[in-house]
């Protein structure tokens, strides 16, 4: 195992609902690791905290209270640093029964210190592509100019001409047809798939050490999705770029990832090598992961059955996290031996096989 490039420890990112006077615990104790050159697939239902985890890493949250605790270790130029270092000076937490019940945060102070640090990292060392490419590009600037500007800002290609050449080069690499023509297009002149390609070109053109791709194919047509996935796979093989790939589509994750993290209700319930997590066998897996795998309409799951194995119950509402295991209400593998614990006490993320961790009492003794 290579040394991790990004290591997130005990990250908590909360929001506050004024109408319910309660915290929305969007990211609640997330632990993740991405090795250099690897692709980590993050799967989970919507609202499970995938995007908020990514935005926390980028330091891009504006609503309060936002990130409140945790450590984000990031290795850049062989220097190990913690992106959240010293920021806890600005936060005071009041806990009750291990639950955060009140937060006092000097948001301006936090923002200033975080911004000071992140402005050197964002775009240059970590860049991100978003679900909706059209909304995340500047509509008033041509696609090419936007890429060239990013190149000028973050790489050694400082001259106008060099940056432009570089941008064209990237447009070509992401297989946009006639890059010279598209260079002068505005984002609205491009189709969804093409816009996503341009977005990928922009993110990669700064040669970041880490790429975060948040649902890069969601909302695109099936035929176009498969093209984007092809492109990502090719870029991965050619450039060996480290990627955090967020998606709720398991087939995409299984195609591209080396390791997988499964999120549920704001926390990571299972992480490990893609092979063992996405394998069909149930035995050494978190019950949520197995249920998720059998509920997708794939050839195997459909064959001969005529119906889908659904997970009963609802997606966990992160405003109301139960005391015990987050999956308890929907879990069909609770045994009498562990029922008590499942209901009362949240399992921690423990290694159940080499490199494979899960949050489930079934595997602890």
């Amino acid at each position: 195992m290579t040394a991790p490039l990004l290591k997130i420890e005990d990250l908590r990112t909360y929001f506050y609902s004024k109408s319910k006077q309660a915290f929305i615990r969007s990211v609640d104790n997330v632990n993740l690791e991405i090795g250099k050159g690897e692709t980590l697939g993050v799967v989970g239902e919507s609202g499970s905290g995938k995007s908020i985890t990514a935005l926390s890493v980028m330091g891009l949250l504006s609503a309060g209270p936002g990130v409140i605790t945790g450590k984000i270790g990031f290795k850049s130029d062989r220097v190990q640093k913690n992106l959240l270092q010293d920021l806890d000076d600005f936060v005071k937490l009041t806990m009750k029964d291990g639950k955060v019940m009140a937060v006092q945060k000097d948001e301006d102070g936090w923002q200033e210190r975080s911004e000071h640090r992140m402005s050197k990292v964002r775009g240059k060392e970590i860049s991100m592509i978003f679900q909706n490419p059209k909304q995340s590009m500047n509509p008033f600037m041509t696609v090419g100019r936007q890429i060239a500007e990013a190149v000028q800002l973050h790489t050694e290609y400082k001259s106008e001409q060099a940056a432009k050449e570089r941008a064209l080069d990237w447009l070509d690499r992401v297989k946009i047809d006639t890059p010279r023509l598209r260079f002068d297009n505005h984002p609205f002149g491009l189709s969804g798939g093409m816009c996503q390609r341009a977005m990928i070109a922009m993110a990669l053109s700064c040669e970041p050490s880490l790429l975060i791709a948040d649902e890069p194919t969601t909302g695109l047509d099936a035929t176009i999705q498969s093209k984007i996935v092809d492109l990502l796979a090719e870029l991965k093989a050619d450039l060996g770029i480290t990627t955090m790939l967020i998606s709720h589509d398991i087939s995409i994750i299984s195609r591209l990832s080396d390791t997988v993290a499964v999120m549920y209700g704001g926390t990571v319930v299972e992480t490990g090598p893609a092979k063992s997590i996405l394998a069909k066998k149930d035995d050494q897996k978190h019950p949520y992961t197995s249920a998720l795998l059998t509920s997708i309409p794939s050839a195997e799951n459909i064959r001969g059955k005529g119906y889908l194995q659904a997970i009963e119950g609802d997606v966990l509402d992160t405003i109301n996290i139960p005391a015990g295991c987050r999956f308890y209400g929907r879990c069909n593998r609770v045994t009498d031996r562990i029922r008590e614990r499942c209901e009362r006490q949240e399992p921690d993320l423990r290694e159940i096989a080499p490199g494979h961790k899960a949050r489930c009492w079934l595997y602890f003794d």
Partner: protein
Amino acid sequence: MSKTILEVIDLKKHFFQRKGLFSLGGQQRSIPAVDGVSFYLKENETVGLVGESGCGKTTIGRTILRLEKPTSGRIIFDGTDITALDTDELRKLRGKMQMIFQDLDAALNPRMRIREILNEAITVHHKLTGAEVDKRIAELLEQVNLKKSKLSNFPHELSGGEKRRVGVARVLSVGAQFLVADEPTSALDVSIQAQVVNLLRDLQKQLGLSFLFISHDLRVVELVSHKVAVMYLGKIVEMGMSGRIANKASHPYTHILWSSLVEKQSREVGKKAKSVQAGKWGVFDFERPLEGCRFAPRCPVYEAKGGPDICTNAASEPVLREIEGGHQVACHFPL
């Protein structure tokens, strides 16, 4: 043999877009969103409709429900021609046919509680007393498997799956026998999609409903439908029993749709599919660069055969032909 509940004959729906800002009568661009579609649906049957975004699936559904006025063609529902009904007759018709909208929030007025929403829907077509309405609401909740406590909630307080269930309950409440389900699962989470698919299947068994099931998810369509119709640029290019379409697709486009399933790509891809997939992707637009077959600009078979004239001849646009046991294809060189 069960009886035919819906028959669509050569249905066309063209939209017109004004080109200039001030050209009132002048130049118009016509978008043939639905361009000559025929099919029928039997009682207690589900027909799946697949195709890329923008190919006209939703428009077919809306036109059948007469939310749009068809440009030409005929729609026969339950033995009566509904192509030219007036507003009043249409309102009565809504008690028999309904639509589940793609957007989860479409059917839910954000200012009304769930109870009011259902109450309103139940009393549109039936005059019922308060007690009868309550009974019917309880019945509906049970059918769609929704907790009673949700009745006092506002829509924004529900999860996606619950919103979809309310939407289905609202549609069932009028007692419709035929439903157009427009991408009923696409806005939902993976784990919830399965619940909704199963719910619709159960309801079909219980209530004997007929569905026109629109989706771009081939897997879901294969699972729920008896028959599948594949659409491209406003026309059905292939139609047949769902097992056949899934396993023995004959139209090059259907092949591409199937092979673009990422799930399939990660495994061994059959040789034929691979050669098809290698085809190049032009732009998808109603303004066709070529006459004849509308798939020609993107068709790998057309390319492999060196651009045969028959494919691009205006006089020989391929029409649906039966190749075997109810399996129809519109292509001169079916695979």
